[in-house]
């Protein structure tokens, strides 16, 4: 994978009347990488993607494709292709006709088109006899693949994905996520993907950008985002984590308004006085003795939830509701209304500000 | 406006709307203004380009034209009420019960709409007239010869109900189709009986369609003329007939125009008041 930047965003901004949808976004996307922008609804990720694809005009800033400014280039001239949320397959055409559309527009003759279409269908594991099948009769997963094949047909430099998996059921989604990652590897193309699910992003992406209210608040590999979230928003975005406010005590330990006791901090960020402590559910354990871990809290089991191979417990301590996850085999836990001792090691916790 | 502003004003929506709006301006708005202009012209003249006056309006209020107005409004109202009762079960069937046959049934019911209304009314004459289909059969089978029902006010209403049925039916069907099945089921589940479900849920949710159907029927019925003439035998003179007389026998175009203006005011006021309150996107999308 080349380290050259294929796409550069400099101060990219989009304003709709009073609303700033995208707020001075800077980003470098490397060629061949799978980059995902993750954020809650309304954070501006769709608007950002549409600007890159050419369906919205930026209010400010620049989009550079291989160093060349493409702000004013209309969508039909950009060497990029978008897979829409609704897939936007042409309902009046067959699978083959959909895939060949971009080639037909460009005047490629029929035999060459068909060869290319069949090649893509093989690559995307669509049976050859689907060539003449109307797209309206294809299943959800098949339609995804047709949409992808259509986008790949004329060999674009970047492929954009607008939450294409959001309307699909869980099992199919898991399968398609892995397939997308495989196709990315096989084609070697640059993929830019947007979703509201961090879990989905982490399965597929080389790098992730977390977006909030029009700004990219953190960019990094899935591992980096997961282990070192930059602030409270990013860490809460990752799903259920334990977060509570803390401040640094005179004796180098942390105290909290929400949880009784004092705690050994992990590595302190410079000039840290107060902020939030983040502990992941799987890093918390049920203790028999307090000194099994560096930090401990006494609480009461409120409820438990079976999550397949893991069990999740809700433990209330002070004003805080802790989420503790254990593997089913470990069988150390509690039952409802039990008084328990839970704890974590300082190295498994993260301090964030704001 | 600077050039760039001008260009942006011609956004896609406006551009696409222009041909239709131009047609309406020249073909609808302009003629209506022509009528208004004519109504102020001196009586028995044939051009609006003259000194305006209120003579025609005075004439209208002095004479008995209010009778034809009243007849037209009353007939239209009765027609609407009868049609609302007749069409609701049918609309309900089309929207909820007939399933995949609904389209075929609709097609069958729509076809008469495309046959000229005079023709259809004529068929009723053939049916009701002396020695016609109905009376001829009675005479042939039972030897009785009752009086023909034709050429009465009741027959006029019969004709109007017949002609305007599709205009009540289709908006109503659209309205009924807007009632989600699950909402009805929820109401029943919460303990409502059939009548309560109808009154509390189905009727209010179908109301936009029902109102549009009533409005459309009323407005068109107020402008009805063929029924009163052909099968009503002129036992009732609706307002449009008076307008027509003013234009033909009386050769008094300005008077006719003034009558038309009054009619337009009534219709226009009604339509504006009712249509204002509707979100057409929501209604038409469901169809």
């Amino acid at each position, binding site marked *: 994978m080349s380290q050259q930047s294929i796409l550069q965003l400099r101060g990219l901004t989009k304003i709709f009347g009073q609303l700033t949808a995208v707020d001075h976004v800077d980003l470098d996307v490397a060629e061949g990488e799978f980059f995902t922008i993750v954020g809650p609804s309304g954070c501006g990720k769709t608007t950002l993607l549409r600007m890159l*694809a050419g*369906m919205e005009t930026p209010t400010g800033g620049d989009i550079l494709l291989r160093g060349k400014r493409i702000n004013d280039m*209309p969508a039909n*001239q950009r060497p990029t*292709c978008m897979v*829409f949320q609704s897939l*936007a397959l042409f309902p009046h055409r067959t699978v083959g006709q959909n895939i060949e559309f971009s080639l037909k*527009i*460009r005047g490629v003759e029929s035999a060459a088109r068909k060869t290319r279409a069949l090649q893509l269908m093989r690559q995307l594991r669509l049976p050859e006899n689907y060539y003449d099948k109307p797209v*309206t*009769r294809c299943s959800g997963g098949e339609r995804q693949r047709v949409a992808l094949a259509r986008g790949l047909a004329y060999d674009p430099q970047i492929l954009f994905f607008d939450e294409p998996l959001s309307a699909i059921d869980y099992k199919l989604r898991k399968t398609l996520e892995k397939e997308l990652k495989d196709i990315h590897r096989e084609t070697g193309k640059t993929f830019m993907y947007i979703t509201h699910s961090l879990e989905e992003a982490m399965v597929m992406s080389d790098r992730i950008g977390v977006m909030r209210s029009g700004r990219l608040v953190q960019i990094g590999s899935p591992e980096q985002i997961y282990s070192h979230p930059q602030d409270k928003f990013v860490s809460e975005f990752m799903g259920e984590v334990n977060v509570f406010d803390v401040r640094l005590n005179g004796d180098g330990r942390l105290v909290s308004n929400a949880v009784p006791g004092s705690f050994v901090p992990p590595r302190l960020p410079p000039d840290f006085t107060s902020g939030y402590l983040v502990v992941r559910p799987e890093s918390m354990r049920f203790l028999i003795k307090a000194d099994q871990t560096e930090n401990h809290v006494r609480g009461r089991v409120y409820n438990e939830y079976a999550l397949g191979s893991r069990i999740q417990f809700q433990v209330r301590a002070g004003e805080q509701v802790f989420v503790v996850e254990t593997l089913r085999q470990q069988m150390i836990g509690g039952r409802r209304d039990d008084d328990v001792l839970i704890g974590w090691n300082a190295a498994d916790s993260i301090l964030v500000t704001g | 406006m600077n050039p760039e502003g001008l260009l942006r004003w011609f956004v896609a*929506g406006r*551009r*696409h*709307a*222009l*041909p*239709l*709006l131009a*047609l309406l301006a020249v*073909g*609808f708005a302009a*003629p209506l203004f*022509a*009528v208004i202009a*004519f109504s102020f012209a001196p009586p028995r003249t044939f051009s*609006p380009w003259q000194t305006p006056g209120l003579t025609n309006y005075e004439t209208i209020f002095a004479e008995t034209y209010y009778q034809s107005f009243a007849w037209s409004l009353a007939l239209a109202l009765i027609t609407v009420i009868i049609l609302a009762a007749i069409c609701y*079960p*049918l609309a309900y*069937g089309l929207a*909820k*019960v007939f399933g995949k046959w609904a389209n075929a049934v609709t097609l*069958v019911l729509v*076809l008469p709409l495309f*046959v*000229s*209304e*005079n*023709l*259809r009314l*004529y*068929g*009723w004459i*053939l*049916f009701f007239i002396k020695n*016609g*289909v109905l*009376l001829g059969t009675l005479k042939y089978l039972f030897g009785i010869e009752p009086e023909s029902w034709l050429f009465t006010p009741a027959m006029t209403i019969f004709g109007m109900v*017949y002609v305007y049925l599709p205009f009540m039916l289709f908006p109503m069907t659209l309205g009924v189709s807007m009632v989600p099945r699950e909402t009805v089921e929820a109401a*029943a589940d919460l303990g409502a009986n059939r009548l309560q*479900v109808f009154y509390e849920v189905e009727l209010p949710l179908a109301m936009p369609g029902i109102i549009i159907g009533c409005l*459309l029927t009323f*407005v*068109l019925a107020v402008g009805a003329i063929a029924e009163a003439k052909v099968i009503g035998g002129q036992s009732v003179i609706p307002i449009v007939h008076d*307008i027509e007389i003013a234009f033909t026998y009386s050769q008094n175009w300005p008077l*006719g125009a003034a009558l038309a203006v009054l009619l*337009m005011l009534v219709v226009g006021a009604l339509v504006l008041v009712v*249509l204002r309150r509707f979100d*057409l996107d929501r209604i*038409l999308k469901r169809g």
Partner: protein
Amino acid sequence: MTGQTSQGMKALLWAWALAIAVFLYLPTICGAIASFGASRYFLFPVPNWGLSWYEKTFNSIEIHQLLKTSLLIAFMVTIISVVIAFFGALAFARYDWRGRSIYQKLVLLPIFFPQSVLGLALLLWFNALGLQMSWATAVFAHLVWIVPVVTLVITIQVYSFDPALEEAAYDLGANRWQVLREVTLPVLWPGIFSGCLFAFLLSWGNFPLSLFTTGADTTVPEYLYAKMVAGYTPGVPVLGTVSTVGAGLILFGGYFVIWVLRNRRTG
């Protein structure tokens, strides 16, 4: 009772629909019966049957002229109205623009308007402009009423049109014309075709607007009306029945075509 309708209720509703259908078609059937009568006056039960009046009608030059006029007007109205209505429907439902909701109400106005009054108004307007009445003015008059109707018909199709389809086509490299030709028109085609049918049939059968604006030319409905008020002649039911059957064939034929093509597309 849940939202399900009972069997008894279903039967009642079907019976009601049947009764209404009979009610709607009865006059047309009477007309058909009358058209096969050989005698000069209408009597029921019909004493002698025959096709003599059909022969007379088909051989009449006057009738041929009428048919030509009606066809010409209907044809012109269909073509022009579908083009204007196509764009009008897109403005109605596809694009978001300021003034759209007022536009939507304006489009409806000619429909919510007594046709005879409209016909009269157009007569006055054309007169004030010094225009001569002919089939051309009748075409214009028909358009004023029919274009809004066709717009609504196409609009219903446009509402289920996914705008992402056009965006996808652009994204794949198509220019404006290609998008129109390859995506917009084909997908909206059923609505457009329905619009054509409506336009043709509504123009063919129209009386109030034609009455005031055709001038020296005469359409079939106008001729029938004149004959009707003058007194009975079997020529009227004949022409009427032919007209009705023709309309029926076009309507059912048209929808049959749509039905076949739709099945071929998905099947």
